[in-house]
């Protein structure tokens, strides 16, 4: 603690002083700007600025390139990082990021006199008990309809038939699947309670069974030979595969397909619980299940768990690492650009000591000299920075159009970030011009002029 204080205090103080120094410099620059504002609109002055900028074309080009390159790299990296994050998110983080799926499996540990390899199946009472566990936000159970394989059951209407996956679930299932309802509604508590023959179909199912423009809500379809009334249609941003599904009430399915009270998967969301809280909830439910069905509470195969809280935490840390990496590199490039600009401005002003002396002797005020140099610096960094910004955005567009990869999706930056980076560089350029300009404007003209 003491060491931290001893080291940190002077560092913080130094940083504060530096910021203060810069703030004062900007305040002075602002004052000069206010006093010399007419120069900004003076064609004469701009001609003067252009002629000095154009005088040393190589140096101007090098400065401009270093600035444009800094901004370009920053914009491109930020955009690419964003695209990478988007891509990873889209490919992996499916469904609710706070969702947990607990599915019945086969025992892998001997327990209570039973050998391994025994098949476990849950039932409605498991669901009812699990629902009372603290920390559970939404819960749904899924009944595994017997005989569902190779993509599901035949679903028919008006002589058309195709196999679609049939999910027999509770009404809360959509809190996990996160489909977008585009017509009608999802399953309701009433559907479950009254064992209605309601069905919610995916967009691809609708397209297959219904004519374009036909309203499917209220129409009847046959699912594995049983008639269901369509109550809603959903789409899914994850793509068409997700839309090849049909949802029916779990209670109806248990009855219609003679499933008794069996349940294959318990699905739940945990609100904004942390990873460890989620683990505790899972352990409690697993404990209940092991107690009722006689398997070891440590048996990972008897209950197979998919825990999105843990998965998304892992991805979040990955995104964090990617974006930190990108920001560090981008800031580094920007810093290199700023140092480059400062260097070049310093040399440029040094070289012009004599010129500044002449101008002073001929009646230029120090303020007009400082402002002229700042004007040059800001103009140069502004133009080059804007070019770099435009180049970076263009490069991102090209990547978006030509690079076909699931790992890069929408590689864009918000224009605010790009513009602030450019403004930051322009301000740095102004600062880089200001200090040597001020020193030069203070120079005694006779000394400057004697300097051969």
């Amino acid at each position, binding site marked *: 603690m003491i060491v931290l204080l001893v080291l940190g205090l002077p560092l913080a103080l130094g940083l504060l002083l530096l910021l203060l120094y810069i703030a004062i410099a900007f305040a002075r620059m602002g004052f000069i700007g206010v006093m010399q504002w007419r120069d900004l609109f003076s064609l004469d002055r701009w001609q003067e600025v252009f*002629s000095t900028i154009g005088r040393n074309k190589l140096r101007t080009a090098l400065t401009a390139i270093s600035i444009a390159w800094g901004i370009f790299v920053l914009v491109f990296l930020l955009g690419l990082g964003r695209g990478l994050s988007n891509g990873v998110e889209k490919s992996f983080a499916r469904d609710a990021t706070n969702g947990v799926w607990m599915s019945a499996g086969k025992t892998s540990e001997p327990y209570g006199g039973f050998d391994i390899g025994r098949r476990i199946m849950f039932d409605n009472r498991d669901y009812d008990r699990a629902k009372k566990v603290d920390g559970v936000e939404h819960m749904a159970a899924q009944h595994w309809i017997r005989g569902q394989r190779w993509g599901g059951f035949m679903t028919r209407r008006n002589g058309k038939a195709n196999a679609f996956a049939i999910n027999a679930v509770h009404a809360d299932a959509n809190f996990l699947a996160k489909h977008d309802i585009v017509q009608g509604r999802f399953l309701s508590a009433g559907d479950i309670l009254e064992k209605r023959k309601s069905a919610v179909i995916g967009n691809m199912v609708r397209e297959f069974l219904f004519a374009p423009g036909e309203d499917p809500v209220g129409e009847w379809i046959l699912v594995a030979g049983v008639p269901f009334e369509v109550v809603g249609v959903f789409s899914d941003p994850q793509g068409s595969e997700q839309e090849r599904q049909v949802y029916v009430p779990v209670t109806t399915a248990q009855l219609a397909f003679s499933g008794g009270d069996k349940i294959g998967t318990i699905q739940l969301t945990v609100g904004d619980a942390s990873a460890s809280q989620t683990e505790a909830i899972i352990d409690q439910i697993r404990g209940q299940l092991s107690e009722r069905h006689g398997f070891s509470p440590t048996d990972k195969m008897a209950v197979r768990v998919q825990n999105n809280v843990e998965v998304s935490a892992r991805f979040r840390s990955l995104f964090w690492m990617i974006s930190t990496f990108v920001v560090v590199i981008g800031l580094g490039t920007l810093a290199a650009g700023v140092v480059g600009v400062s260097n070049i401005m310093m040399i440029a002003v040094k070289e012009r000591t004599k010129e500044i002396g002449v101008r002073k002797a*001929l009646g230029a*005020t120090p303020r007009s000299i400082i402002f002229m140099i700042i004007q040059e610096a800001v103009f140069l960094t502004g133009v080059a920075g804007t070019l770099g910004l435009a180049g970076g955005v263009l490069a991102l567009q090209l990547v978006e159009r030509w690079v076909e990869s699931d790992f890069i999706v929408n590689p864009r930056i918000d224009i605010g970030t790009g513009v602030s980076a450019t403004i930051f560089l322009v301000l740095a350029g102004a600062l880089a011009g200001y200090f040597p300009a001020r020193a030069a404007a203070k120079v005694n003209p006779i000394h400057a002029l004697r300097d051969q």
Partner: protein
Amino acid sequence: MLRLTKVNKYYRVGTHSLHVLRDIDFEVEDGEFVAIMGSSGSGKSTLLNILGILDDYDSGEYRLGDTIIRDLSESRAAHFRNRLIGFVFQSFNLLPFKTALENVALPLYYQGVARRKRNQIAMGFLERVGLRDWADHTPSEMSGGQKQRVAIARALIGKPRLILADEPTGALDSETSAQIMELMSEINRSGITVLIVTHDPEVAARCQRTIRLKDGKVMSPEAAAAAAAAASHPGMRAAT
């Protein structure tokens, strides 16, 4: 035109200070043509700085026209330099990336005169120094004499009342020097006060009056006469 009364100037070097100008006292009347002479280290550059309002002094009084030049703000000083004084330098100090015309017009830029107008005026002054045909050339394309004439045109364009020339012929051959001095006399005849800092006795000889500096002091008329005699009789140099 200008008067210095007991002007003192110190340069602080580390802990001790160097007394560069000691009680400088002299007066220059309107329309005079004066040479300031002195060996190097005699303080003549410092004096020129003070006269040109490019440097401050420590005590005494410097009066330029009706104004006491003392502790002026940088912008006031710039204003006086721009309106009252024209500078001519040994190394010309033209801006190399500007044409002769643009160089001549520069003081008017700082007076806020519009480009077309100032170029027109500058052309007139270039004509006056005989360089009308060289208006579009940059300094690197000109001879030393031509460059100095451009510099003189630039010094004149602000319609100054005082021309301060720092070794204006120092970088020129004797024939060109004579031409430049002729131009200076001509300018003086038009009513402008001219002060030339030089170590060249021939240049000083063309002026109406010479002020000699030695060790930061104005030499008395007798000592000055002796020095002038020494300068004009090389044989006596060894004796002094």
